[in-house]
């Protein structure tokens, strides 16, 4: 502990005057169905949440001033009766089950956490006298896939950073299937505070070119697609893109992206090698 106080002493102006009750120290854990991140595509679904507060101070009890997960509390979670004290090595765990009848309910929950997307990722915040720890667990609401039987299961996943000719950084992340009729498509592009979110993949063309996707051998290395989506929250925007996988690491992979707003004006045009990240074709 002595080393810690020495370190705090070095902080100078940042912590001058901070109360000496630095002794409290807590951490949180949050899981859903035993994991940090789950996907649900079969409905009705059951979500078993586990929230935990633990005292990690080595020698002193710690007082939990607040421990809250507002989204779960809106759904009926009783929450933690704060404040309370945890002894050394002490922890308190609570569980809560949410039943999700269908995809629409799942998407409604996803929107209720404040972000319009397909993910329920509300946070659990634990506060003590001068600090807080924040934990999340993700539930992605996914439409059911195509019916069993012969289908094109090929897909490409990945993401990374590219730059426009003007030097603007653009990040993209995606999970795209070569069968455009498959509803399980996801693509997001961000740049300079802007966001494009794919709502519907219109066309998909998975091509086997002279590039080499290496492992796994997928039988294609280039995904060419078009779609419609939401640009800065406004639906009706369109996107054209080409993503390539030229093996690992992803420095030889490329991305070409053109986004047009609902009026047809090009708001993003970029074609570049990945600065970081990777594209991966899957058989």
């Amino acid at each position, binding site marked *: 502990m002595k*080393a810690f106080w020495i370190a705090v002493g070095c*902080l100078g102006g940042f912590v001058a005057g901070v109360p000496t009750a630095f002794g409290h120290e807590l951490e949180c854990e949050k899981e859903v169905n035993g994991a940090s991140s789950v996907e649900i595509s079969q409905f009705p679904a059951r979500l078993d949440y586990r929230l935990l507060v633990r005292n990690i101070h*080595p020698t002193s009890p710690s007082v939990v001033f607040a421990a809250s997960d507002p989204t779960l509390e809106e759904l009926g979670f009783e929450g933690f009766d704060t404040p309370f004290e945890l002894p050394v090595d002490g922890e308190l765990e609570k569980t809560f089950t949410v039943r999700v009848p269908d995809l629409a309910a799942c998407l409604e929950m996803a929107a209720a956490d404040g972000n319009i997307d397909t993910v329920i990722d509300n946070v659990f915040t634990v506060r003590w006298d001068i600090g807080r720890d*924040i934990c999340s667990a993700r539930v992605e609401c996914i439409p059911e896939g195509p019916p069993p039987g012969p289908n094109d299961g090929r897909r490409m996943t990945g993401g990374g950073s590219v730059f426009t000719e003007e030097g603007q950084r653009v990040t993209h*992340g995606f999970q795209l299937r070569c069968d455009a009729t498959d509803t399980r498509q996801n693509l997001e592009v961000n740049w300079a505070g802007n966001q494009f979110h794919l709502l519907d993949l219109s066309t998909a063309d998975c091509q086997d070119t002279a590039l080499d996707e290496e492992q796994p051998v997928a039988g294609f290395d280039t995904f060419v697609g078009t779609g419609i989506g939401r640009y800065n929250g406004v639906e009706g925007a369109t996107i054209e893109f080409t993503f390539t996988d030229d093996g690992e690491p992803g420095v030889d992979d490329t991305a070409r992206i053109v986004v047009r707003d609902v009026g047809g004006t090009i708001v993003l045009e970029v074609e570049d090698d990945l600065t970081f990240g990777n594209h991966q074709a899957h058989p």
Partner: protein
Amino acid sequence: MNKLMMAVVAVVVAGCGSSTVEPYGAKVLPYELRMGGAQVGEFGKVLLVPNAIQISADGVPVQVVREDKTVNLATANHAERIASFDLPEGAKLITFRVELGAAGGFEKGTASGWVDTRGRVLEFDASADWVRHQRRAGVAIDLTRSLQWVDEATYTFVPKYRIF
């Protein structure tokens, strides 16, 4: 002292002597928002891009100057400034919202790849008195707990972080 506490302290210490170099004359406001990593483990690089930053005082947006940069959370003992902001007189509660770009990157040993950060948002609040006193707010992301392995070239980011 536990490892996370040490890491957070290290991040804060690094923040004292910022080495972030901004273009000469770049506008900087009086208060800083910083982001760093803790519990780095075996990661050589963990790169994230803050795409949008909103800061409000008692529900009213304040002036923010966002820094367009990639943050390497695996950089030991360093929390990078990702924005500076102003605070109005009399403000009580400051709310921070950092929207990440769609993808990050990682290097771990000989492996590298992308970090799925689609739709990820870091949100927290702090009292204005606390922010004024420190002249900054910081986020220390626990990398060991936040990065979930998907495959050799992919991690997904499930944020677990501490405010300092």
